[in-house]
């Protein structure tokens, strides 16, 4: 008899505890919201903009799986499933353009990612404020040169007949090289010119992050006898690691997105083996028959790959450091 009463008591007890827990949780939530509802308000404008202009149009992506005809509209166009994707995957040059695109991207990442960081560190550590400002302004300027002009200049500078580079090579006794004619050089030309153009601009963010590092840390390091170089390694660099990691993750997420215009302008019949990317190839196909569904499908393909890369990098980063996108 007493056991029963006891178990009843126990049951009621755990019930009450459960109730109390839920109530507590709810109370905690209310308390949290009371103190922090504003944060959610801060998010509202951004969320609204995204819903209107980014999420709402996403319904259009379905045409990657349809044969889009404007008259029939998005939902009325016939469903064709993976037809466009298969057409792309089975095209003769699919593997070539995929490889070319990825090789360019990875090369760009490996070479182009560290350089703005190093540049920012050097700028930050150099003496002479005025000179620094000059260097900064000059190195930011290439960012504003349009792709068309950049490519025109490159072709000119690399010319075997009159180009600056070949003139310098000849001065040192070498033979002229027609750089634009060799597929082996294409990637280097593409990547190095990209670095030239965006090194300064991309270093801005690191430079600003460096300015957020507390001077006390530097002072402490000096007291400990650290040289400038050591301070860069142990104070500056760690201070901007969060920024570096985030940008690295984001860059990983654009590996498939090699821009169309620059590649197209630098391509020619001789270097096309390495210079044909997904974007230029799809463009050429589009010249023959203007297929919106097909280009949407390719875009979706690129995006999905990018998203996978992004998520993987984010996951890795979360595991091994405190920084991640989400």
């Amino acid at each position: 008899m007493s056991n029963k009463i006891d178990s009843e008591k126990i049951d009621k007890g755990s019930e009450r505890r459960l109730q109390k827990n839920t109530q507590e949780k709810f109370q905690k939530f209310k308390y949290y919201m009371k103190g922090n509802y504003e944060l959610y308000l801060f998010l509202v404008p951004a969320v609204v903009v995204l819903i209107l202009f980014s999420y709402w149009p996403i319904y259009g992506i379905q045409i990657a799986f349809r044969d889009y005809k404007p008259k029939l509209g998005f939902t009325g166009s016939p469903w064709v499933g993976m037809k466009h994707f298969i057409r792309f995957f089975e095209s003769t040059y699919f593997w070539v353009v995929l490889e070319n695109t990825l090789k360019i991207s990875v090369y760009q990442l490996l070479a182009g990612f560290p350089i703005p960081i190093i540049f920012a560190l050097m700028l930050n550590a150099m003496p002479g404020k005025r000179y620094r400002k000059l260097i900064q302004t000059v190195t930011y300027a290439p960012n504003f040169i349009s792709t068309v002009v950049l490519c025109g200049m490159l072709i000119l500078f690399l010319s075997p007949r009159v180009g600056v580079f070949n003139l310098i090579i000849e001065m040192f006794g070498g033979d002229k090289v027609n750089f634009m004619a060799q597929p082996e050089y294409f990637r280097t030309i593409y990547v190095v010119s990209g670095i030239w153009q965006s090194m300064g601009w991309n270093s801005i963010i690191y430079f600003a992050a460096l300015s957020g590092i507390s001077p006390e840390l530097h002072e402490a390091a000096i007291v400990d006898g650290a040289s400038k170089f050591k301070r860069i390694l142990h104070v500056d660099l760690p201070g901007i690691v969060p920024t570096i990691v985030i940008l690295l993750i984001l860059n990983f997420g654009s590996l498939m997105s090699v821009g169309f215009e620059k590649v197209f302008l630098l391509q020619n019949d001789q270097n096309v083996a390495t210079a044909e990317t997904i974007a230029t190839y799809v463009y050429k196909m589009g010249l023959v028959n203007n297929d919106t569904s097909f280009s949407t499908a390719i875009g979706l393909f690129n995006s999905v790959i990018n998203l996978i890369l992004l998520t993987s990098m984010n996951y890795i980063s979360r595991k091994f450091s405190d920084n991640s996108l989400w």
Partner: protein
Amino acid sequence: MKKIKLTSNTVFDVVTIAILTIILIVVAYPLYFVIIASISDPAQVSNGNVMFYPIGFTFDGYLAVFKESQVIRGFLNSLLYTVVGTVVNLVVTIPAAFALSRPNLKGKGFIMFFFIIPMYISGGMIPTYLVVRNLSMLDTMWSLILPGAISIYNMIICRTFFQSTIDQGLVEAAKIDGCTNTKFFLHIALPLSGAVIAIMVLYYGVGHWNAYFNAMIYLSDSNKFPLQLILRTLLTKIPKSTEMAGNVQEAMRQAQVAELMKYSLIIVSSIPVLILYPFIQKHFVKGVMIGSIKG
């Protein structure tokens, strides 16, 4: 002891300055080239004769650009769009970045994911155009400003900055004193964020200044065209007509002018930004952390 330290730092300084100077020269030369090419005879430029000074001195490129009254109007339009657009960007981006930077924000992982997806998945030009049309924003300034009101990339940069400089402990401390999140944001966080606000102004501002694609598809009234769009159309002024006899001469002449204009256009469109930059620079001041609660 001191002497050794000085020497190692001095070596470092010397090496750094040397490297940076080399970089300066290498980067500067093509820029210098653009300037002298913009006032040289295009044939001379393409023949590689223009190296250190202009040859075949001509201002035709600039004349061709400024002859168009549209250029002035485009300039003013761009100015308007940039200013209004950047303000909108700041209002939308910075508070959101701040909110997402607070570690105690419930649901922030989910919200972050919500923000990231649109960077990669997009419905494409046509559906976006239809949305803009349905909102009656066609041929208005808002079609240039609202769709791009937030750049997730920029917001992430902003968020990272807030994460590393505005410790949540500060917020908690302020709360004890009766400060709400909003008050904290406005009176404490923002003043400390000169650097990141400056970056946002720079990135967004330049983005607006250089933009032409949205204008191309959403604007019909050419009086509303921004500068870049007008400049681009100047470059493609070669009439795409058939090569009927007589046309070829003009096509050639226009192609040459376009060659010439290529360089002067760059100068014209980037000068305003380059002038603006030093003012932005001022905000990249070192060490703005006041009264850290560490220790």
